[in-house]
């Protein structure tokens, strides 16, 4: 099992409206190479769930076990390192470094992790996302689809055990969105990665092996 979610709960204290429970005893597992989509209405807790899986936030209760390790037992620094090695994240708004070229954005995680053969790995990934000819362009000079392809390449270049995607096509037009999603699933399949995909889009969700629906903080 690559990911085990065990009865996680998360609530937020709001000064005027009291405590808001966002996730209530959510549990599920994800095997190696499996893909799952998390869907639900706005405010159902999808993004919060994603942030807990990514270790960007910690649950009030329950456990997130990634590749056999409980994220709750790690400190911030260990978590950051573990996340860097095990998880790739694709954001809706791409979040590329604006002053780095496409190539440099892709190689950035490898540089941070001080890995070997950065050039070869980056070249290979650029080729996979078909951006070799645009590798020296800055994000501002790329289209939305190209930016998201760079973001996918950056997430996969470290060969993570788990890929998390937050509405990866939400900022793209339909045609570009389809191309990007096809690329995403092809690469996940090719690299044998596990994928948790958060989306409102039923067509995109249907491409995953399983679909989990969140309703007011509970899996239904």
């Amino acid at each position, binding site marked *: 099992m690559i990911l085990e979610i065990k009865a996680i709960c998360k609530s*937020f*204290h709001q000064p005027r409206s009291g405590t*808001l429970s*966002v996730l209530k005893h959510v549990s599920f597992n994800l095997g190696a190479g499996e893909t799952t989509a998390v869907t639900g209405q*706005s*405010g159902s807790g999808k*993004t*919060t769930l*994603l*942030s807990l899986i*990514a270790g*960007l*936030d910690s649950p009030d209760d329950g456990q997130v076990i990634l590749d056999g390790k409980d994220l709750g037992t790690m400190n*911030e*620094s260990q978590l*950051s*390192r573990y*996340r*860097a*090695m095990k998880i790739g*994240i694709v*954001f*809706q*708004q*791409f*979040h*590329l*470094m*604006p*002053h780095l070229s496409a190539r440099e954005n892709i190689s*950035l*995680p490898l*540089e*941070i*992790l*001080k890995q070997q053969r950065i050039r070869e790995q980056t070249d290979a990934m650029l080729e996979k996302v078909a951006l070799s000819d645009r590798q020296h362009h800055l*994000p*501002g000079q790329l289209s939305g689809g190209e930016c998201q392809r760079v973001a996918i390449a*950056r997430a996969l270049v*470290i060969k993570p055990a788990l890929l998390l995607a*937050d*509405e990866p096509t939400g*900022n793209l037009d339909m045609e570009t969105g389809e191309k990007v999603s096809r690329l995403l699933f092809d690469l996940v399949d090719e690299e044998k990665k596990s994928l948790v995909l958060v989306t409102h889009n039923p067509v995109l969700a249907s491409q995953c092996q399983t679909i989990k629906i969140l309703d007011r903080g509970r899996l239904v």
Partner: protein
Amino acid sequence: MFWIRMAIRDLITNRGFALFFILNLSLGLAGFIAIHSFGSSLNHHLDENLKDILTADLVLIANSPLTPAELSLADQVLGPDKSHARLINFFTMVRAGDNARLIRVMAIDEHYPLYGAFALEGRGENKDLQERPGVFMTRDTAYALGIRNKADINTPLVLGNKPFFIQDFFTIDPDKSLTAVELAPKVYMGLDQLEGTGLIQFGSRIKYYQFYRFSRDVDIPGLAEKLRQKFAETFPGQPRINIYDARDVNQRLGRVTGYFTGYMGLVSVVALFLAGIATAYLFRGYLNLKQREMAILLSIGAGHREIYLYISFQLVLLGTLAAVLAIVISLFLVQAFPIIFQGLIPRHIRLVTDPSTLMLSMGMGMLGSLIFCLPVFVRIFGIKPLMLLRGTQQVKRGTFTRGLGQAASFLPGMAAFFLVSVGVAGSIRNGSVFVAGFVLALVFLSGMGWLIFSGCRPLSTTRNLVGKIAFRNLFRNKWSSLSCFVTISMGVFLISLIPQVQKGLQNEIMRPEGLKIPVFFLVDIQEEQRLPFVEFMEHQAADLVNISPMVRGRILTVNHQPFYGDNTGPGARSSVSGRRGRGRRLEFNFSYRERLDVSETIFQGSPLSKAPWNFESAHPFEVSVEKSFAEQYGLGVGDVVGFEIQGIPLTGRIKNLRKVRWNSFQPNFFLLFQDGVLNDAPKTFLAAISHVAREDRQALKNKIVSAFPNVSVIDVTQMAGTLLGIMDKLSLSIRFMAWLAIAAGMVSIFSIARHESWKNENQVNLLKVLGADFKAIQAITLLEFGFIGLTAALFAILLSFGFSRVISWYFFDSLWQFDLKFSLAILLLTTGICMGTALTASRRVMNTKPARLLGNT
């Protein structure tokens, strides 16, 4: 290496920020470095040339000739292998043909100087002066005496009753002590030639010097101390000889420039602080811009530690570059100091930026940028990659800890500010007063700001859309408005404070209000000359004023404790016992007068009794003491002081403390006695002469010198001209430093206004999308920032009035003058800068297409 590469690349990408940061910090650092560099160059020069300046290793100075017993004791203590030289020094009048003027006679023996030498134009030698009545002087002095060409060279120079002739002209004077503020030029003559001049009379202010030079390696300070002890043991009672070594010269010269560089230093601290504020604001804007990028880096595996190092490296790099630029700027600035201090410091001073200055600059650049930016820097703790996920709830945890951390982040800056202020002010007291005033101003302005922005609530109910939105913004974003208000007002406060203090000080020095400056000041009128002199003046077209008796004497005790003794008893006054050190004053001038001069006012206590004191009285007589003298020696009203006048012990009690405006150039005294005490004591007189037509001045001077050769006539107008020249230079440098601070302040205000207006970017976008026209958005921005700028400047200027008044009272004896023009200019400039900057920053947003404003990167 990767992070370094990233950091440098990032700075290159944001080169606007980087350049502005460097320029701004370097502006603040430059003045500070220039002053430090000058100070250390001066110290270095003094250390290297102390013996040349003193012309000896050690010198004994007395107001009367050294006795054979004293010289024998000195010879014994100082040991063998030494040479010695003698000098007698006093002021007198010299007459050449129809010209007479005051000179300083330097009567030297054949061994003078022991270090250094005369640079003479001709072949003159010291021994010529001993053999015949010749003098050495500068060509300038000769010119002033009417000796302007070769034909005049044989004009006799009459000193007292004896004619002298010019032996040679010197271009370099071996006596390198301060010259510009001296009353008169120096004229060297042979010691033996003094005989027959009749210049040395009772009451003449003459100094006798005995110089020593050692040909072996000796501990000179140790020997000087040993000599002081031996003199104290062998000749008990009040010491009458001052013993100086090179260290004293250093201290004396250091004191002259110390006060001034202290003031300039504090101004430079203000400039540095203002630059620091601007730097922090610039960095804040940069960090806001970088926040998302940091979150991205964190999301792909970078740790907070790496982010801190990444940002710290950028700050250190910018700080270093700022320091380098500041050093370059200071190299130009420091060249101005020898011109400013011409005559106050030794000539040919070599200005060097020594390693300590370089280290300090680099340290201040690197650490300064980190310290200034620390309150902003700690915000990196709060950056989480969570912010990259859409719709995520913001986690508010550890608010108290973060708040505490945020508060603590200001402490290093405050500590550094305190330490630098104390260092520059040269005393913990003055530095603490400076910092305390600063904190007080911060508290006052914060309170005022809070009241102002709370008061914006009713204003926001107006029907006018522009007013409604602008005042609502100010009221609802109270913290943001307040931080902007406080920073701008602190900047304006500091900017406004300096010229207020400077103006009062400058005006007082240059034009003493309500005082009539005399034309001549007369010294050494003998008692028997008094009546003939009064009669003589009755026949001249001039007024003789303030003829004042002067009696020399000593202070023996204060409240029955020895004035110079080892005063360690329970009732001891530390400041009195502290005067036992080197360089103390041994004799003082006392006087008495029927009523106070217009230049005098009683500061504390009551006037002296009109009734004459009776020698048979069991009560002490009444004494009036000048305020700064009382402060220097720790004297207060009611203190009982023991005097010795012409060998007679007398006891007085301090009745009042007086403030004297010395720049009135009237005969004034530190100590005035009750009538009846000094009336029968042998005395000389001082006087002033007013109302002399410009064209009659030289003739009158010549007449006085012919009739009373021993009386010295000081040309006050000429001396005031010299002093004004020095003051002009000093005030120029004060103004320069003030403008440096103002420039730093204006950059600071610009940075703050720009940052705050950028924060409004979203609102401007929204208003534009909702259909607000360009003019309405512009008006809202102008009103909002104009209001902040105007109120901040107004309260800051009001506060600066109060503070400058207090500073003037505390440091400069209540010299204060309101500078309306400058205040109005600052008020308008600040408001204008705030409005202009906000408008420029908003225009960038306003000119952008709505599609781009609404889109994502």
